[in-house]
């Protein structure tokens, strides 16, 4: 049989068109527009301290959004993180105030509780892979919140030592918040692991086709367990910063954080279908939503209306990949293309 050996190209051709047709550019535009808008409402906004203040206003929530990106890339979802924030925060406060543990130990309790909550989600979902993560984490969400309410009832628990408050309020050289530095380190680490390591590649594989991943020898359930546990842990990190910020905790804190974290990630271009998106999009999106909320707050925009804006953005983000530009811009554009 005469056969000419085919040569397969191993280099990806660079295309400007592809380069510019990326969701992140659109996000970046919105991000810049929001900053311009904010700078008109407050003359102090576009200064180092102004921007840092704006950043501090939402950053504690962003920690739990980082592993949420992994969850969505895997095609999973976790809506129990808000309750995990509450339960880990409450148990930290109780350990310190009622059990007399030193604050350092109480903080470790907080992280362990968070990780345990995530681990429980993970164990249920990996032992029974046919269950829907949405429903399981809805269940644990109610469960965790229930435990937090039972422990603290309708009370607040606070009076933490000064150094604990400094976790949120402290600044390097009086300028850069510790929290921001820690966030940057975490965000870079999460991004690099997702895009530059075999672990990240496997997350994308699981999200694209978990069955094929299993047949390719990827320990799918083990990886899911790790990521769910990690998510619980970072919910606890959010709990630490949030509690440090408020100086006390209540069983109802962190309500709605799950939806906010999911919104940040989805707007960033990481689809709930799994297997898609880039981490940089998630980071831009976290800051876009954060600054938008802050800016709208500056002009006393009612918070209910804020939900309309963010909801609208989210719907655009979900629709964007499905829009047929040829149809929208008519046949002229299609012919020109």
């Amino acid at each position, binding site marked *: 049989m005469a056969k000419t050996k085919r040569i397969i190209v191993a280099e990806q051709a660079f295309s400007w068109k592809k380069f510019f047709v990326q969701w992140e550019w659109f996000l970046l535009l919105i991000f810049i527009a929001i900053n311009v808008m904010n700078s008109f409402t407050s003359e102090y906004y576009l200064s180092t301290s102004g921007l840092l203040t704006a950043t501090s206003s939402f950053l504690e929530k962003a920690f739990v959004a980082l592993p949420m990106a992994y969850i969505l890339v895997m095609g999973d979802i976790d809506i129990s993180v808000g309750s995990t924030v509450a339960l880990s925060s409450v148990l930290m406060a109780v350990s310190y105030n009622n059990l007399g543990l030193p604050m350092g130990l109480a903080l470790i309790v907080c992280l362990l509780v968070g990780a345990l909550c995530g681990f429980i989600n993970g164990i249920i979902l990996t032992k029974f892979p046919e269950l829907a993560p949405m429903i399981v984490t809805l269940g644990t969400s109610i469960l965790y919140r229930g435990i937090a309410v039972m422990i603290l009832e309708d009370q607040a628990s606070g009076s933490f030592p000064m150094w604990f408050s400094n976790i949120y309020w402290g600044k390097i050289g009086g300028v850069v918040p510790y929290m921001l530095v820690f966030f940057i380190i975490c965000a870079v680490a999460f991004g690099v692991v997702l895009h530059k390591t075999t*672990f990240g590649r496997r997350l994308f594989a699981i999200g694209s086709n978990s069955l094929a991943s299993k047949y390719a020898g990827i320990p799918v359930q083990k990886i899911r367990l790790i990521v769910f546990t990690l998510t619980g842990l970072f919910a606890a990190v959010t709990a630490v910063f949030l509690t440090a910020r408020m100086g006390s905790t209540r069983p109802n804190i962190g309500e709605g954080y799950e939806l906010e974290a999911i919104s940040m990630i989805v707007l960033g271009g990481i689809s709930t279908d799994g297997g898609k998106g880039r981490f940089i999009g998630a980071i831009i999106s976290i800051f876009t939503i954060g600054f938008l909320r802050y800016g709208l707050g500056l002009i006393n925009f009612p918070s209910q209306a804020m939900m309309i804006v963010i909801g609208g953005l989210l719907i655009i983000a979900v629709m964007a990949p499905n829009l047929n530009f040829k149809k929208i811009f008519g046949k002229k554009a299609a012919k020109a293309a």
Partner: protein
Amino acid sequence: MYEYVLELKGITKIFPGVKALDQVHFQLKPGEIHALMGENGAGKSTFIKVITGVHKAEEGEMFLDGAKVDFKGPKDAQAAGIAAIYQHVTAYPHLTVTENIFMGHEKVKGGRIQWKDMHEEANALLRELNADFTATEEMGALSVAQQQMVEIAKALSMKARIIIMDEPTAALTKSESEELYRITEKLRDEGAAIIFISHRFEDMYRLATKVTVFRDSKYIGSYDVNGITNENLITAMVGREINDLFPKPVVKLGEEVLKIEDLSRTGYFKNVSFSVRKGEILGLTGLVGAGRTEVCETIFGIEKKSGGRIVLNGQEVAIDNPQDAMKLGIGYLPEDRQHQGLILDWGIGRNITLPVISQLSRHGWLDDKRERRFAKELAERVDTKAVTLFDLASSLSGGNQQKVVVAKLLASDLKVIILDEPTKGVDVGAKASIYEIMGELAKQGYAIIMVSSEMPEILGMSDRIVVMCDGRVTGELSRDEATQEMILVKAMAKSHQKSEE
């Protein structure tokens, strides 16, 4: 009566960038079963969609009973008495058989659906087809063969005169195929003209009187089935002669590599034993449902065994998951390449390297260059029809997708390769090259287990053949002694054995 019930002349269909059909002709006589053959991607499916009004051809004319027709959509084709039955049944699994049959043309009187009439008519149709189920059963609970029967009943309920069957036997067992042949002949005898698409030569010989061949979107010719040979047809379909479809090399067999002893999984198979040697191709065959795939998935660690031993190179091994199996050098090519074998929206490069991504990385860090070099080498080795490593797996035809899955398998350092239906849904040309690769691998000293339902491939490629029936091994035959009849007898040994017990 006109000579042709359906005639198409000079049909051309263009999709952005591709000519899917190029000046194609077709003539169908009343009461005829006409086979349509060609490799995957030859244009058969597009052609069917033009006939059924799903696609509109850019050029060409279509005549029904000599009168020119111009279908605006599928409804027009249905109204004209054309019905198509697809390989993957497009049904509503949660609805009843009746609802499936009458979907889109329910019997309505004064705005109310006439359930009683519909059930009665559905049952009458099913009786006519000799079906062993009733109209009130849920579609999803039926077997593929039964679902096809429902589709045929649907075609009949719409009074179809021209029935198109697109690879209806692909997912059927031997006896189910026989039943389908019978029904098809019955439909013909009652006056329907039938277009029958299949990759199986035996379907064509058994049923058709005429065969039309497409290749590369073009019409190659129409031939009388009486007097045509496999060789003529393959040449017409592939455009070159394939002298030896089964290039099985003579390999000197080495020591025993894998041996399974009394392997059992409750409810699926029991006390299965066989072994495979270095350089050997072991054919594992039996009817669909005999437990072949289940045995292989258990060896590969997808499912857990309930008893028995797996011995590799003389030592018993424990395999709890695919990672264990791959570490030990056992690879598995799954039966369903679209769902189990490939990530369709990934490029072929990443698909190939997925199982070995750790080995290609440096301490967990991806090494793009090394990964691409590795993927390129394998993709070229299996000669897949992709242009770059970034071509999406979904963009390739079945045969080329399968080559990518083979490349993915070869990426790992293996001793034993298990191929589950490696040529299922693959066209003749790609089949030949997959067999060629198999022969190569045997020469290189791999021990190969090939699961297959296709008799010619089992007889043509295996050194030894193990036959399973109903979860048990019912026979083992050497290459020289095996014949189609012997295998069939052993594959249907079930009833025989039961009566002995």
